[in-house]
Structure formats: structure tokens, C-alpha cells
């Protein structure tokens, strides 16, 4: 193809996106579009899978049968999200094995929030309420993103995430209205998860490298700082409603802006965790790599068995 032809295709492609048409797997797409989507979608899938670990940590210790069932169902949903996000990413010409490889070697990232430990039951509430809450704010706009398989996956993911978020908040309500010990547990969890949740919405706009291109492709519709403000404005009243205190002495309603002003985020901590030196980075990766390595003989056996079955079928047919 000549350079002019490619340019022509690119123009048509951008025009389709501008018209809100969906791009489908078999459509022509610029290489950069494909790569950007593989990066973002696989990162999203990895986040679901690694995200199973901090919550999986409390399945055996959930305080009641009702909570145990809800937690199991939630973690299972996350595995399901991982599954269809990996499948959606595969439509761009990369295999699940390659994506795992990128995760295990550290080439691909996942959401940094999962590198914090879950040390009390209240963390299950805080993760649902804050982490899933921040995730929804990030993800709802993706239901209208330009790449068809991603947009369709996100519609389902968002429905389930909003259920998880309510479930998490409900855990917090129960604790906040419980005994002094329970209330203390809830406040402590909020103290530990608040700032990492704000960081989840990404580096401040001045330092975000992907934003402009992503806006054009509808991979992003608002800037990180706008999303963060939206999250804070939405969450502060929820905390007040149940008598918990946001751990930010600078938090203050700004009448003029119609939004909350808030204190400075510790970006050094953010970059430390992103670069692999958070409290649980090594453990999370070790758990994933172990599951994969210990499962190798199982996957090999399944392949060998399928092959044998196929051969027997062919033999019978002769």
C-alpha cells in the first residue's frame, strides 16, 4: 500500500470514530490503534485477575455465610470479567498465553491498587465501595468506546461492578452502625484505602502521557483529574452519611466550584507502587506465576487428552 493510500484509510478510520461508529475486529485499523488497545484492554484484564487475590484472601474467613456467598460470587464475577476481557483482546491478534507472559515478566501492568494488603474484614467493604467505585467512574465511559468488542464487554462489566460497589458500601454501613470495634475497623479501612483509591484514577493530567490520543479514540472521555474530582464529590457524602471521616484534613466544600477541594496526593507513593515496590507487588506476582506454573501439567494433560480423543474419533471414522 502506498503512503497516500494508508493516509486515506486513516482518515476514513478517524471519520468513522468521529461518527460514533464501532470498529470491529476484521476492520482495517492503524497499527497504533491496535497496540494501544491491546495495552489498555490486557491491562484491564490483568487487573481483574490480580484483583481476585486481595479479596480471595478473605473468602475462607468471611464473618457469615451470607457474606461468604456474596464474596465468592464477587470474586467469580471478576474472573468472568477477566475471561471476556482477555477474549475481547484476543480479537486484536494476541493470544491469552502471550498476555500472561507479559504480565508474568512485568512487561504488562495491572491496577496498582491491588498491591495493597487486605488485613481486616472491613477491607472487603472498602474495596467494594471505594475501589470498585473508582473503577466504575473510569469504566462507564468505556461502554461507548470505539472498539466494538471492548465496548460490549464493558457494558456487562459495569453492570456487575455497580452491584459490587453497592455490596461493598453495604458492608461499610453495617460496620459503621455496629459496635465500637466494628466502627473502628471501618474507619481504619477507609483511612488506608482512601488515598490509593484517589491514585487509581491515574496520574495528574500534567503527567499523563496517553490522554490526548485516547480521547480521540474514545478510550478516555474525561481527564484523570476530572474523574478524580467526580469520585471525591460522589464519595464524601456517602462517608458522611454513615458517620465515617475522610482522612484528609484539607478536604473542604468549595461553594464557588461546587466541588470539594482536597489535600495533596502523595505521588511518590503512587510511582513507588507502579514501579513494583508497593507492599504486595512481589506477592501478587508470585501468586499468579505459581498458579500458572503449577497448572502447566494440568493444561498439558487437557491438550493431550483432547488430541487423543480426536485421534480415536478419526480412527473410528475410517
Amino acid at each position: 500500500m502506498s503512503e497516500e493510500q494508508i493516509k486515506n484509510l486513516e482518515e476514513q478510520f478517524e471519520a468513522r470514530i468521529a461518527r460514533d461508529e464501532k470498529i470491529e475486529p476484521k476492520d482495517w485499523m492503524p497499527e497504533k490503534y491496535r497496540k494501544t488497545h491491546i495495552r489498555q484492554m490486557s491491562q484491564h484484564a490483568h487487573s481483574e485477575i490480580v484483583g481476585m487475590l486481595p479479596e480471595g484472601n478473605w473468602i475462607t474467613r468471611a464473618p457469615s455465610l451470607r457474606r461468604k456467598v456474596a464474596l465468592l460470587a464477587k470474586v467469580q464475577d471478576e474472573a468472568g470479567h477477566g475471561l471476556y476481557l482477555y477474549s475481547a483482546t484476543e480479537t486484536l491478534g494476541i493470544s491469552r498465553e502471550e498476555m500472561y507472559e507479559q504480565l508474568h515478566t512485568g512487561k504488562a501492568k495491572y491496577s496498582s491498587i491491588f498491591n495493597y494488603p487486605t488485613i481486616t474484614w472491613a477491607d472487603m467493604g472498602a474495596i467494594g465501595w471505594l475501589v470498585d467505585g473508582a473503577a466504575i467512574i473510569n469504566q462507564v465511559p468505556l461502554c461507548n468506546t470505539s472498539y466494538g468488542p471492548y465496548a460490549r464487554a464493558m457494558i456487562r462489566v459495569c453492570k456487575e461492578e455497580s452491584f459490587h460497589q453497592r455490596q461493598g458500601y453495604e458492608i461499610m454501613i453495617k460496620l459503621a452502625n455496629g459496635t465500637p470495634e466494628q466502627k473502628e475497623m471501618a474507619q481504619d479501612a477507609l483511612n488506608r484505602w482512601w488515598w490509593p483509591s484517589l491514585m487509581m484514577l491515574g496520574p495528574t493530567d500534567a503527567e499523563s502521557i496517553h490522554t490526548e490520543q485516547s480521547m480521540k479514540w474514545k478510550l478516555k472521555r474525561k481527564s484523570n483529574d476530572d474523574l478524580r474530582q467526580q469520585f471525591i464529590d460522589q464519595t464524601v457524602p456517602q462517608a458522611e452519611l454513615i458517620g465515617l471521616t475522610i482522612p484528609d484534613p484539607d478536604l473542604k466544600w468549595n461553594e464557588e466550584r461546587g466541588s470539594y477541594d482536597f489535600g495533596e496526593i502523595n505521588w511518590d507513593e503512587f510511582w513507588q507502587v507502579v514501579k513494583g515496590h508497593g507492599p504486595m507487588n512481589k506477592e501478587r506476582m508470585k501468586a499468579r506465576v505459581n498458579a500458572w506454573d503449577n497448572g502447566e501439567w494440568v493444561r498439558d494433560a487437557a491438550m493431550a487428552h483432547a488430541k487423543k480423543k480426536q485421534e480415536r474419533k478419526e480412527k473410528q471414522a475410517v
Partner: protein
Amino acid sequence: MKQNLYKYILGIADNSLILGQRLGELTGHGPSLETDIACTNISLDFFGQVRSYYQYAAKIAGDKRTEDDIAMLRKEREYVNVLLVEQPNTNFAYTIARQFLFDVYHFLFLTELEKSKDLTLSAIATKSLKEVSYHQRFSTDWLKRLGDGTAESKEKMQEAIDGLWTYTDELFHQTEADKAMVLEGIGVDVTKLKEAYYKKVDEVLSEATLETPESKWFQKGGKQGIHTEHLGYLLSDLQYMQRTYPNMEW
């Protein structure tokens, strides 16, 4: 309170509780995303069953006890699950062998319990049977894949079957509560399931190109609350919150 019925329900439900708890340990650590989802799903089914049974048991007890008290606040000697279900997740072959050896029993058992004169138990059995027929299909398929897969998987699968075989006979032991409930037309006579069980297990093992163990040395005790050393640790996790923060709502 109907002591025998209460004990009888616990004898059924504790198996689901302990096996559900074991499967719950695996969430996020399975050999593939698909098996991870399946094992979590089976665990969920078990806990769903457990809640129905314990809620019914709590009603029969007629005091203030709740499903959670029954699940999480008994002492180790008061759990009456069979030894098979408390065995650890040594590797995926053990998980599958434990599941298969229990599922075949569970399916036969529930098929009979469906005929119980006790309408609540019969209804729980009907609902659970749908789930358990899926469990059995899952564990049978994997048993065949691993048995008739690679040389390594075959060896691991055979070792797991051999290792857990000693816990199968206990499934067919009757407790005093069992006998009383059979007489009332409520309970299942498990001794009558034994032949069909070993026949089915033998068929599947042979299809999976595995040997049916010949050992006749069996372990028992779970139904009397005399467990293997594994159970105490499992209960430490299961009971942790209820023990540390007593009398609270979650």
C-alpha cells in the same frame, strides 16, 4: 427439639460446608481461569446448600441459634463431616479426586433424599441435584482428562485416587441419627448406596485408564467428630471472625 432430625441435617450439611470451604481456598489460584471459575462456582453451590440446611436446622433447634452459629461456632469434635471432604488441596489432582469421590456419592444420596417424607429436605435435595449433576460432570471430565492425558498427569491422578481411597468407605457408615431417620422415612439408608457407588467409580476410573485401588484398609471417624489433623486449621479460618468478634452482626 427433634434431636435426631437436627443431627441428621448436620450430617448432610457439614460435608457441603467443609468441601465448600476447601474449594474456596483455591479461588484465584487455579490452573486456568476456566477451572478457577468452575471451582468457585461449585464452592458457591455448596454454601448455598449449607445455608438451606442450617436455616432449617436452626428452626428445628427452636432457640436463638442462627445458621452462622451452627456453621462457625461449634467445637471441632462437633463437626460430623466425613474425613474425605476435609482433605487438603495437595494439588489439582487431589482436588479433582476428592471432588469426584464425593460427587458420585452426593448424587446417589440426593436422588434418594428427594423421596424423603420431610418436605424441606426433599425440596433442598431437588434443588441441589441440579447443581450436583453439574459437579459430577465437571469432576468426571477432569478425572478422564488427567487420567488419560500425559504420563505425568496419569501418575498424579492415580496417586490422588490411591491417597484418598481410604476415606471412601466411611460415606456408607450409619450413625444413630441416620438409623432413626431411615425408620421414619426421612433419612436415606446409605448402606444401600455402596454397591452403586463403587460400580460407578470403577467404571469412570477404567474409562480414565486408571486403576481402582484394591486396598481394603479404610479410615473412619468424621461422622463421630473424630477428624484428621487437617480440620482444626480449616476451622481456624472458618471461625476466625466469629471467635474474635463475638455477638456481632456483619
